[in-house]
């Protein structure tokens, strides 16, 4: 198990996606013309605004719903969201920060061993799926924690889940399964 190893596995969170509302209608043209670092996409109907610190990209819709991506932690996402609403407030809109929710967390982790994907898929037949023609990784979906793990043959895995806690649990859960199908370290 993970805790019995000497080295702990480093789970690096690479992306946190959060949504929130500002509770007021936004005029995308005004934001596009007067804001800094914005890209206007009229065919879709949204404005992309990039913040430098924390480094996030936000998609802003005229209804007042905003999706904030690119943060590296849940707190960062919240800080970025608040900073974003401050920018909108300075542009003259009557914003009210509400309904902040982290929707997706993406983390990568690297196992110290390579993995034999065909064995892994055979052992976990319905839950794991591997289509080498479509994607080089095997996908393992854990239903009860709603996390998806993509396992590569080099031993790196990417985990996506609704929050950081789930991601950590998913890694704990999948580690023993991966260890069973590990290739010997000397190749």
């Amino acid at each position: 198990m993970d805790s019995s190893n000497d080295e702990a596995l480093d789970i690096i969170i690479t992306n946190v996606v959060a949504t929130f509302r500002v509770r007021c209608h936004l005029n995308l043209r005004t934001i596009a013309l007067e804001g800094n670092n914005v890209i206007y996409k009229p065919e879709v109907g949204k404005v992309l605004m990039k913040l430098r610190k924390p480094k996030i990209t936000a998609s802003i819709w005229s209804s007042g719903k905003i999706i904030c991506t690119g943060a590296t932690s849940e707190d960062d996402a919240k800080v970025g969201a608040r900073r974003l609403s401050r920018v909108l407030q300075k542009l003259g809109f009557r914003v009210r920060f509400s309904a902040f929710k982290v929707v997706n967390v993406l983390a990568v982790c690297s196992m110290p061993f390579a993995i034999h994907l065909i064995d892994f898929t055979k052992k976990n037949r319905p839950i794991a799926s591997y289509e080498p023609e479509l994607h080089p990784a095997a996908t393992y979906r854990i239903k009860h924690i709603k996390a998806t793990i993509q396992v590569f043959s080099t031993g790196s895995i990417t985990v996506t889940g609704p929050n950081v806690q789930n991601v950590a649990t998913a890694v704990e859960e999948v580690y023993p399964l991966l260890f069973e199908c590990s290739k010997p370290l000397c190749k």
Partner: protein
Amino acid sequence: MASTSRGDALALPRVQCPNHPDAILVEDYRAGDMICPECGLVVGDRVIDVGSEWRTFSNEKALKDPSRVGDAQNPLLNGGDLTTMISKGTGAASFDEFGNSKYQNRRTMSSSDRAMLNAFKEISTMADRINLPRNIIDRTNNLFKQVYEQKSLKGRANDAIASACLYIACRQEGVPRTFKEICAVSRISKKEIGRCFKLILKALETSVDLITTGDFMSRFCSNLGLPKQVQMAATYIARKAVELDLVPGRSPISVAAAAIYMASQASAEKKTQKEIGDIAGVADVTIRQSYRLIYPRAAELFPPDFKFDTPVDKLPQL
């Protein structure tokens, strides 16, 4: 006039025995008579005979059975559709003065199943292009029917679902076709077929076996015109390469293509990477990459009884 069994709306005169008006008449269809069972009186005669108009002999095996009408039904897939349709006319009499055909309105036969029948036709066309046998087509039709009735993939293009069903059927029968091969006979992109494939597996809650390099050897080698020896050698090479895990993370198709390249280069029938790439649907740089991985151990990958036209150390090194 008393014994009308139905309601008074139909006041049709019914034949009945004058002595026994309540008796139910027995029909003798051979003679065309209606006979009263009580007294034996023949009440109605010259009743229309519904027997057959031809004689059938027991020893004669007629290719068509004259007492059967219409095409063989497909009850598994259609649910027993028995309507008669008016087809487009032939000959001059079927057109009215403006050149439009009379009876232009073909009654829609079963609108709920029309999309399904269309899909079956499409499946049949696609399978015909790559010469798939009847059992795969039947399996594909069954899969499509199951998916269609479930309605969980209702928003997707029917052609995409049909192509994905064809792919799954080939897999399930043990003769997988690559996605690119299915793409070649379908108008749907590989990405969409892949997406539908995953959705169908989830909807039907089945899974398929993993593809191996050996599944494609016979097809690729025959298309390239390689002799049996080379094909067997390539199969052995690919299997050994996967067992020794020389090619981790490579698609089995690419490994198969590289194995074919190695085997053909060692034999008298040398094929270029481009030719193999064309047949297998892999880029020739991909073949080059996989070949580089298996080249160092080439000597142990060949089968022991292989006759080399070009010895192992003279194999091309890219």
